[in-house]
């Protein structure tokens, strides 16, 4: 019984464990460099776009293993529009709004073909991948356009000052950052306890006390550690706030709302979902339009971080997002997967990237390793499912 429990826990948290192991390996390999405050900060800021895109990609993958190949090009397209607008002196918020709108329109355009005309998503978005790469070039006229608007850079995680300022004027440690970490942990602990108590009162099955406390303590420690490290650098990067908001919002969306539920249902059995009176076309339309929206946010974060837009930006971003989802346990046939899983997948890829860069591994070999990790994750998933039968 006990061994069975441990087996289940191992299975459920495989990727988390893999993440810990990988961090451990690089900790040794880089002689601790990878966990320096600045590197942790970079890990989150550099991969902000992956977290956002993976969240959106997950919604598409849930509907039946469908992917969106166009996101890399659209990141570039949307970023290009914003950079050009701001360089022409248009108000920063108007520019942001236009970027978001452009993303949603692009998403809706592709979603229309996928949902209502039944163009296979692979084809519809492959077309988008070409078309929007071309349009990015047109928008940018083939050149790099730099972004100098400091409001934009500060708010979306670019430039030197894109951190939440320390309100308490801490000397070596950013006190605001530490307090934020403590508050988050406190909220997390309190809601966990409240949920557990109410579940127990209603007589629902709950996880064993040991695993509940273990999870609580581990997550709390990880969060505190993270914020402690960030406090030792420049504080909370603004991009982290965007990631935080998006991840929480979409976690809530996928687990608690009807549309979230329908994404899983369509991926699990489209015909049964249809016969339950659900408009499955709307579900597809939502998934791809939403992908456009999140791609726009990823585009904003990308050009802000680089403080410029270039026609080559965003290449292979779609692959990073797709890889993160599958490493994070989403099924290639749809119907299963979670936002947190995709985030863990994205983190794992990010850590591997960064660790290898610090160790000075050749960029070409980095790609080989990334490919093998993706393959290994999916093989593991397939094998563990086979065992169950």
């Amino acid at each position, binding site marked *: 019984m006990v061994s069975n429990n441990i087996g289940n826990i191992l299975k459920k948290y495989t990727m988390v464990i893999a993440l810990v192991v990988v961090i451990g390996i690089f900790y040794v390999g880089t002689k601790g460099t990878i966990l320096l405050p600045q590197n942790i900060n970079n890990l989150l800021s550099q991969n902000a776009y992956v977290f956002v895109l993976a969240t959106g990609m997950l919604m598409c993958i849930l509907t039946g293993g469908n992917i969106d190949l166009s996101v890399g090009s659209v990141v570039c397209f949307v970023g290009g529009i914003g950079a050009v607008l701001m360089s022409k002196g248009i108000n920063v918020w108007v520019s942001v709004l236009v970027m978001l709108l452009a993303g949603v329109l692009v998403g809706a355009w592709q979603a229309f073909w996928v949902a209502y005309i039944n163009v296979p998503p692979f084809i519809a978005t492959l077309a988008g991948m070409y078309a929007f790469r071309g349009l990015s070039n047109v928008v940018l006229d083939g050149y790099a356009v730099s972004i100098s608007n400091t409001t934009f850079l500060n708010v979306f995680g670019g430039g030197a000052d894109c951190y939440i300022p320390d309100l308490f004027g801490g000397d070596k440690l950013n006190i605001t950052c530490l307090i934020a970490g403590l508050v988050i942990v406190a909220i997390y602990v309190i809601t966990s306890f409240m949920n557990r108590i109410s579940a127990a009162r209603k007589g629902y099955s709950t996880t064993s006390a040991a695993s509940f406390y273990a999870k609580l303590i581990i997550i709390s420690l990880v969060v505190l550690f993270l914020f402690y490290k960030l406090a030792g650098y420049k504080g909370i990067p603004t991009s982290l706030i965007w990631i935080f908001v998006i991840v929480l919002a979409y976690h809530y969306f996928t687990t608690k*709302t009807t549309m979230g539920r329908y994404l899983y249902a369509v991926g699990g*059995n489209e015909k*049964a*979902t249809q016969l339950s009176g659900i408009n499955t076309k709307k579900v597809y339309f939502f998934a791809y339009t939403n992908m456009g929206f999140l791609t726009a946010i990823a585009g904003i974060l990308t050009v802000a971080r680089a403080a410029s837009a270039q026609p080559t930006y965003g290449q292979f971003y779609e692959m990073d997002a797709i890889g993160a989802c599958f490493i994070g346990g989403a099924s290639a046939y749809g*119907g299963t997967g979670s936002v947190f899983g995709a985030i863990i997948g994205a983190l794992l890829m990010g850590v591997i990237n960064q660790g290898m860069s610090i160790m000075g591994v050749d960029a070409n070999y980095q790609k080989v390793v990334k490919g093998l990790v993706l393959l290994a994750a999916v093989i593991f998933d397939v094998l563990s499912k086979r065992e169950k039968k």
Partner: protein
Amino acid sequence: MGNILLEMKNITKEFPGVKALDNVNLKVEQGEIHALVGENGAGKSTLMNVLSGIYPFGSYTGDIVYNGEVCQFQKIKDSEEKGIVIIHQELALIPYMSIGENMFLGNEQGKKSAIDWDKTYAEADKYLKMVGLSESSRVLIKDIGVGKQQLVEIAKALAKHAKLLILDEPTSSLNETDSKALLDLLLEFKKQGMTSIIISHKLNEVAYVADHITVIRDGSTIETLDKKVDDFSEDRIIKGMVGRALTDRFPKRHDVKIGDVAMEVKDWTVYHPQYAERKVVDGVSMNVRKGEVVGIAGLMGAGRTELAMSIFGKAYGTNISGQLFLNGQEVHLKNIKDAIKHKIAYVTEDRKGNGLVLSNPIKINTTLANLSELCTNRVIDQDKEYQVAEEYREKLKTKCPSVEQNVGNLSGGNQQKVLLAKWMFANPDVLILDEPTRGIDVGAKYEIYCIINDLVAEGKSVIMISSELPEVLGMSDRIYVMNEGKMVGEMAGAEASQESIMSCILKS
């Protein structure tokens, strides 16, 4: 006893945590038809998988003696070389390949580098003739009906020089005429010396063809009945299967008052969605009253499912015409959502394909058709969802560790209960149940019948489409008979008989 062709001795097969087979013994005589019966999950298919090498030697204990020698099959190819060929319940044919290509798939004629197509098709035609099919082997599988596809499977088995033919539920997707033809073919083969093992739920068919019947229950052999000595009546076989005599296969309904007409269709006509000139339902008029169970009998392909689905918010067909009345008022249902809102439910015949999301837990399946009931501002109240799922689990006696269990892990009978729970939660007044007991065992069937009785006792109306005549006769207050898209008969349940229904169909 005659010559023993096959003997399986003390076969025990364990899966992690479950003993699927426990000292099972099976003796099959040369040239007989041997039936294997038992409830779902009794271990019939597992036993056949052991025999055919799908579970390789070493993964089970016990001996397989075939033709006098002990066999240790490592894979399917090994058993096929000896002439043991299994035909699975789900047809394993590829729709866009020709009959001939399918028949010799994995057994291609000619050289590896160059398939000899002339030989392939000539051989294929030869075997098709043996099973009584006149189609050319160049016809694509998708262009022939399910009945003929089943015959192609048998021809394919013959092409492998089968000496022992194993058929797993060969008639489960066939109508009565095709089933009869298939069974007669087996009898014909028997005359030529072929030995067959048939697994079936349809006990009348088993009684018709079998020389011996081996009953398996909970992974053990219970008994083997011999046609010459034993009684082959359904009641006798069921007694062995469930371990008790089912004195009444259909629960009694007590004092259900039949009220006003709840739903009525008039002159309902539906055309095929792809072939727009083909009428699938032709001028059908029918009604169902409150508290009434109306059975719709008919052969496979009679248009019953199509009728039901087209009523259910145009879920099937094009160019639908006719009138639909609910409680005397004419309604026009635009889509499925609309139909659910008007309190109609259609419980599909294909629970895995069209009914349930197998990768989702019971609770999520239970609420899918009526999720808005649990929502405020599109946010699901998951406490309430859990309670609803629990309530239906208790009410329908669904056997599962918890409602968090994925539906894919349940047995057929329990899946059917989840499907019923889903539509009961949608709170319909009229339930259309399409083959509600297909492929589930006798005990679960009885429970489904009890649920139907409870539903009409609450004043709901039930339309039950079924291809099993005893079920239609046992459960219905009134029976409609459908054939080739038309209503060809209507009779009171008490007056109807298998003969009167069949004669309606044949005379139409």
